[in-house]
């Protein structure tokens, strides 16, 4: 085990320990905010594994999350399926449905991919309202969905377990040669293909992993909310949060997007007492914009540069 991997694992352990203790230290309000932060982190991680390294920027991630959310919502609300069946079904449907729609789009490169995925999101937003509004609840959505656990603390631990398992798994994945290959796709796909790697299979793998996390996260999320509505999922605002969380944190690093999601969620909550009204969202957006333009590689890069500088400082002190 090399030293960076070991340091990373220590980091995850420290993160897990802190998160486990946290709800006993902070108030319920903060705990509730953490639940939202962790769901955003799950979505961010899901986006990151597919788009963070490959350069296939997905603007349609809410589409995947929405498939998962709506599947389990409809199954439990109308057909009264138990949660232990509906949630796995939702995950599978997300992976299948997502593949049917998204995978052909993976043939399209770069910017066009972003646009076509955006079109998917808009399409499904239109369809949910038009097709069978009696079943989907139309624009108003459905309320009174079954919850898995109730209360702030049980929901906190549920989200935490999912985040830790998904996040750590993906973090390990990008540390294998798959991660390297995904980065290579982002730089020069043709070269990767020429070197004999099956790029299609590679992309499919990353996509499946991403869809799995999105479907699972989406399903658990709607059961946490207790309600589902098109505007909560297929929305530019939601897409914005996922994207900005990833990019502020540092795309392609898995740990960065988690940090980004926490930062964004708490930024909004910190601002609430001082700017309760619409100024809050202006400041929130402006902070995101300035940070992003200042360092497009995100917090992760800032921290790494900081550590590097620290090391250099130590080195120079040792030598002198």
């Amino acid at each position, binding site marked *: 085990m090399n030293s960076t991997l070991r340091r990373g694992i220590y980091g995850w352990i420290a993160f897990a320990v802190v998160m486990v203790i946290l709800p006993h230290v902070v108030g319920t309000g903060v705990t509730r905010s953490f639940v939202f932060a962790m769901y955003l982190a799950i979505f961010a991680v899901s986006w990151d594994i597919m788009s963070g390294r490959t350069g296939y920027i997905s603007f349609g991630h809410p589409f995947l999350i929405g498939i998962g959310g709506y599947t389990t919502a409809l199954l439990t609300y109308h057909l009264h399926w138990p949660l232990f069946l509906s949630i796995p079904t939702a995950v599978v449907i997300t992976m299948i449905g997502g593949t049917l729609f998204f995978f052909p789009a993976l043939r399209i490169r770069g910017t066009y991919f972003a646009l076509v995925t955006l079109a998917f999101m808009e399409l499904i937003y239109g369809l949910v309202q038009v097709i069978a509004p009696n079943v989907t609840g139309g624009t108003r*959505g459905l309320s009174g969905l079954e919850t898995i656990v109730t209360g702030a603390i049980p929901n906190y631990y549920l989200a935490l377990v999912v985040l830790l398992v998904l996040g750590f798994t993906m973090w390990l994945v990008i540390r294998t040669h798959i991660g390297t290959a995904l980065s290579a796709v982002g730089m020069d796909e043709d070269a990767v293909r020429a070197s004999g790697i099956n790029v299609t299979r590679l992309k499919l793998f990353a996509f499946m992993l991403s869809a799995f996390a999105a479907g699972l996260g989406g399903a658990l999320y709607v059961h946490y909310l207790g309600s589902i509505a098109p505007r909560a999922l297929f929305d530019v605002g939601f897409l914005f949060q996922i994207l900005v969380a990833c990019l502020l944190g540092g795309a392609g690093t898995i740990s960065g997007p988690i940090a980004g999601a926490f930062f964004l969620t708490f930024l909004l909550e910190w601002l609430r007492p001082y700017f309760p*009204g619409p100024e809050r969202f202006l400041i929130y957006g402006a902070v995101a914009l300035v940070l992003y333009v200042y360092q497009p590689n995100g917090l992760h890069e800032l921290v790494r540069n900081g550590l590097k500088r620290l090391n250099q400082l130590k080195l120079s002190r040792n030598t002198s």
Partner: protein
Amino acid sequence: MKFIDMWKPALATMAALVMLATGGAAVAQDKDPVVVGYIGSFASDTGLSTIRGAEIAIDELNEAGGVLGGRQIKFVKADTREDVVEGVKAYEYLNDVENVDFIISGSIDDVSLAWLERMAEYKTPTLDTWTSYVGIIDKVVQEYDKYKMYFMNIACDEALATLYIDFGKDVLAAEMGYKSTVLMFEDTAFGVSIAGLVRDLLAPEAGIEIAEEIIYDANTVDFAPLFNKAVDSGADFIYLVSSVRSQVPASQYVKLQVRIPMTGVNVAAFGQDFWNDTGGLGGGTSTLSPVPSVGMQLDDRTAAFIEKYKARYGNERPIYPHFNGFNAYYGIYSAFQAAEAAGGFEPLDAWVEAMENTDIVLEKDGEMWFRYAFWKQGEVEPRTGREYTHNIKFDVTEPFDDGSPAMVVVQWYEDGNVAVIYPKKFANGTFQEPSWVQ
């Protein structure tokens, strides 16, 4: 030595602060404020209407010596930005951080539906003043124990539509002689459900046939093909149902000078600011409106509320509260009337029962004009034959002596005046076709 000197003033201030804080706490202990939370948008006209209505009522109660044995009311607010998930976060914030006793809401349909589950979890008494979605009332009817802390003091959309059909019968059919219509509605849940009620009742009740139905995408840019289709159908008028981007069909109707009259539901026309917002392009628009609407005559107490509103907010928009501003004002009174009777907002059952028994009757010239009371569990509304537990006690039949009318129809004239045109009891104007209709 020097160190201590430097810090002396700071230490003294800190000590003073500590004393103040503890002393303050001691005083507050016997006069803890009652905390009322607002959930809804901070910037929209509808959101501001609820905030201001509640603020005025709370200030009146505080000035009159407080509530529940002299306690002051503290008003705290959480913004939803009309966003579903922000709504859930705001509801959690009010409960977990602000520890509210009661919540007054200016939320729209899907936002209310989203925080409703949190309400059932926290069991916080909550009053909605804007959404009229009957689906929420149905939840109270079906699962009373889970949702009993919920009240809605605007008549639900089903009641609105029921009375609205009478407008078709009494005015559109009987007075204007219209025989057929084009039902044009947006593909939102609101549009589809109102259109469904109109479709079921219009022909049998009012004798107006639906010649054609047009359901349109809420983001439609160009209504010209739709209006053409409507005119081609040969119908006498257009029945529009629009809640999202409602100014688009209303103003394109004027811009295109569509040759047949149009009435219906147009949410944009609910506020007094409509005229300025359209730069005068709202002429001819008539819409059903929840009460109290713009252009409506008021009883003395409500008129005094409006005077206060105008004095306080002047030219800040909305220059006149939307219906939910009135509902919030009286809603605060109902909630505290119930709290006084029950000895507070806890225990919940006592407050809910007291709230069900609140009854604010507002009379004008000796007649019932408005009423803020609620349907009780098991009570059946005679005309629709169903229950509306915890919805405002509305009335859908002449002579409107059981409650506020479920709605009135208002019309914006081409000179910028607005008047109530239906029902007769409340009318101060008549239905008029726009000048370009031949």
